[in-house]
């Protein structure tokens, strides 16, 4: 390694922090445009759905435990369980399936 690892890390941290900070500083006033407001309203749903699927299927040791965790999460979330319970029971379901398969 020719370059200094710490310089790399500081560059990464600075770039990433600025990306996170810029919109918080630049777009402080409430946006009036209905279109942009609607866009920002939909952003989390699309972003999180895309991040979750299909990645959730390959997150665990095998696809069956991933699929089980996915279905368990869907059912519990649909029934309005808290974040904590959904996450913990999904982990438990993965653990149990992997004991068998």
């Amino acid at each position, binding site marked *: *390694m020719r*370059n200094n*690892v710490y*310089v*790399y*890390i*500081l560059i*990464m*941290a600075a*770039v*990433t*922090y600025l*990306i*996170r*900070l810029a*919109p*918080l*500083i*630049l*777009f*402080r006033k*409430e946006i009036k445009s*209905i*279109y*942009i*407001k609607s866009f*920002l309203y*939909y*952003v*989390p*749903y*699309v*972003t*999180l*759905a*895309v991040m*979750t*699927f299909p*990645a*959730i299927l390959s*997150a*665990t*040791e095998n696809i069956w435990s991933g699929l089980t*965790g*996915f279905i368990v*999460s*869907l059912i*519990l*979330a*649909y029934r*309005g369980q*808290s*974040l*904590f319970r*959904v*996450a913990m029971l999904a*982990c438990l379901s*993965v653990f149990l399936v*992997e*004991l068998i398969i």
Partner: protein
Amino acid sequence: MNNLTYWKNGLKDGIPIALGYFAVSFSFGILAGNYGLSPFQAVFMSATNYTSAGQFAALGLIANSAGYIEMAVAQSIINLRYFLMSCSLSQKIDTDKAFFHRFLLAAGITDEIFAVSVCKKGRLHPFYNYGLMNMAMPGWALGTLAGIVSGSILPERIVSALSIALYAMFIAVIIPPAKGDRILAGIILLSILVSLLFAYIPVINKISLGFKIIILTILIAGGAAFLFPVSGDRDEE
């Protein structure tokens, strides 16, 4: 509610994030060790970055002695999605709160903290996010340390089980509002289907996750905003 109550609520909601982080950063720690980083360097990277995709990519870049500018460009591309998330959050932060809060909140805009905080009803209280950050962020750093110091502190089964926590959380965030809202349910379903296509169609499946998230978000959320504009104060219900 006062600041302390908000902070405590944040701590509580941060527990699943912390556990999920631990599992992901545990894998990161192991890999960082394989790439020749010292435990201090790996933990230092985790404690200053909080970006899984960015950090995994950085290991490869460092090992190949990439240029500093190359590192900066790569990180800004991989992490550009935070820009979108930050735009979305910026509108939710209580405008009465002091300006300096925004500098602290910026440090905690990760996929997971964004997911949990953006879907809270009404305005966002900075102390709620501080609670999330205080609980979740140590999980990221500690997982890295555990991973790099010893790849065998946790049995593989436990790591595998914890790996699903973050995804389960994302589901718990997006499903309840979509219940009884056909537009939102349709948008989520469409996102999942297109995401699946992007994962399997040749050539397109070479697109990195960060870019895929940006492209699909702009296309789908942009299209939805055009077709189904949200009237007024839906968010403040």
